[in-house]
């Protein structure tokens, strides 16, 4: 996926789709680089420490129940993990997506004569970030296997994380699994990654992680479904 227009960018906050309210988004990753230059060095020397992430969402105030203002207001005083995913330019399957674990820091409402009321949100990380891929985006109507995506292998000890969002639908339950293969199923059949399964019965977000080694190709699989249709978003990547 090459350079892209900002239009088409999706913003998924927990199980809520915010792109219909937003006009701009920004994410910034800062890495600590303590300087360790000594008398003996020509030029600087730095070591790499931890990182932090901040995201800004700029949008249009909507006071309806379950709309943007209500979503941002619910974050005030909320100390739980919340998941912000931004597939830049496109949310199609196979698109690059940044997944962040965040808390809200501020959410100003601004109103200027002659303009729409604006609602912005600033979010700060409270966990690791991943650069991953959108594995599924759309309506599930039965058991299925989505197209495999090459996310690269992960080594033992590294965290591979999948975020499964159920947005809405008419359903009783959907059972999902994240499966792996070394060659997209060509010679090595896809198999469920141990511990990366879930059965979901209502709208919400489910976080699946493993620190076991995983193979390069992953895919989203629905192993059981009871209902008519459910809108889902599935992203996954290695947490740095």
């Amino acid at each position: 996926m090459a350079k892209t227009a900002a239009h088409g960018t999706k913003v998924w906050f927990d199980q809520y789709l915010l792109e219909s309210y937003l006009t701009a988004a920004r994410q910034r990753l800062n890495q600590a680089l303590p300087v360790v230059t000594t008398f003996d060095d020509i030029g600087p020397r730095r070591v790499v420490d931890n990182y932090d992430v901040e995201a800004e969402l700029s949008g249009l105030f909507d006071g309806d129940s379950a709309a943007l203002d209500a979503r941002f207001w619910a974050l005030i005083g909320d100390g739980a993990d919340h998941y912000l995913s931004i597939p830049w330019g496109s949310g199609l399957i196979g698109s690059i997506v940044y997944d962040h674990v965040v808390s809200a820091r501020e959410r100003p409402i601004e109103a200027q004569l002659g303009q729409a009321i604006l609602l912005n949100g600033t979010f700060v990380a409270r966990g690791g970030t991943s650069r991953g891929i959108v594995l599924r985006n759309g309506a599930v109507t039965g058991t299925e296997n989505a197209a495999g995506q090459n996310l690269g292998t992960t080594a033992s000890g590294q965290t591979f994380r999948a975020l499964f969002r159920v947005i809405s639908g008419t359903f009783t339950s959907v059972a999902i699994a994240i499966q792996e293969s070394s060659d997209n199923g060509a010679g090595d059949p896809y198999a469920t990654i141990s511990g990366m399964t879930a059965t979901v019965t209502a709208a919400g977000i489910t976080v699946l992680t493993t620190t076991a080694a995983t193979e390069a190709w992953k895919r989203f699989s629905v192993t059981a479904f009871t209902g008519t249709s459910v809108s889902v978003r599935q992203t996954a990547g290695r947490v740095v």
Partner: protein
Amino acid sequence: MAKQPAKNINIAIGAVVIEDDVSSSRLGITQEVPEVTSYADAGPRRVVGNYDWSLGLEGFPDFASGQSDATLFALVGDADGAASAYDPTGAAAGANDPNYDGTIVLESYEIAGAVGGPVTFSASLPGTSALTRAVA
């Protein structure tokens, strides 16, 4: 070699050529110049110590495998950093074609987008080595 238009610049991070994603760049070098002015001096006196340098990039991220977004994000947590090559004339090192080479680490990486515009990026890449100006 005459003055140069910006479009001539070649930039590489590691083995990845990224000038095709960059629209603005800055190679900054700052030298330590501690002041040693004494009562007896008319005007300032300074001595020269070590220097620091940093590469700043802005542009449009390419999200394809192996391109600018993947390359820059890969520097998160990378203690070794990556080789950087900044060639203002776009030519191999020569008497009139300086090539600035060093090792960088990632300090910040920002992606942004607004309705009506492209997705953009900016990155700050401070040096963690000597900076060489190759002319041959």
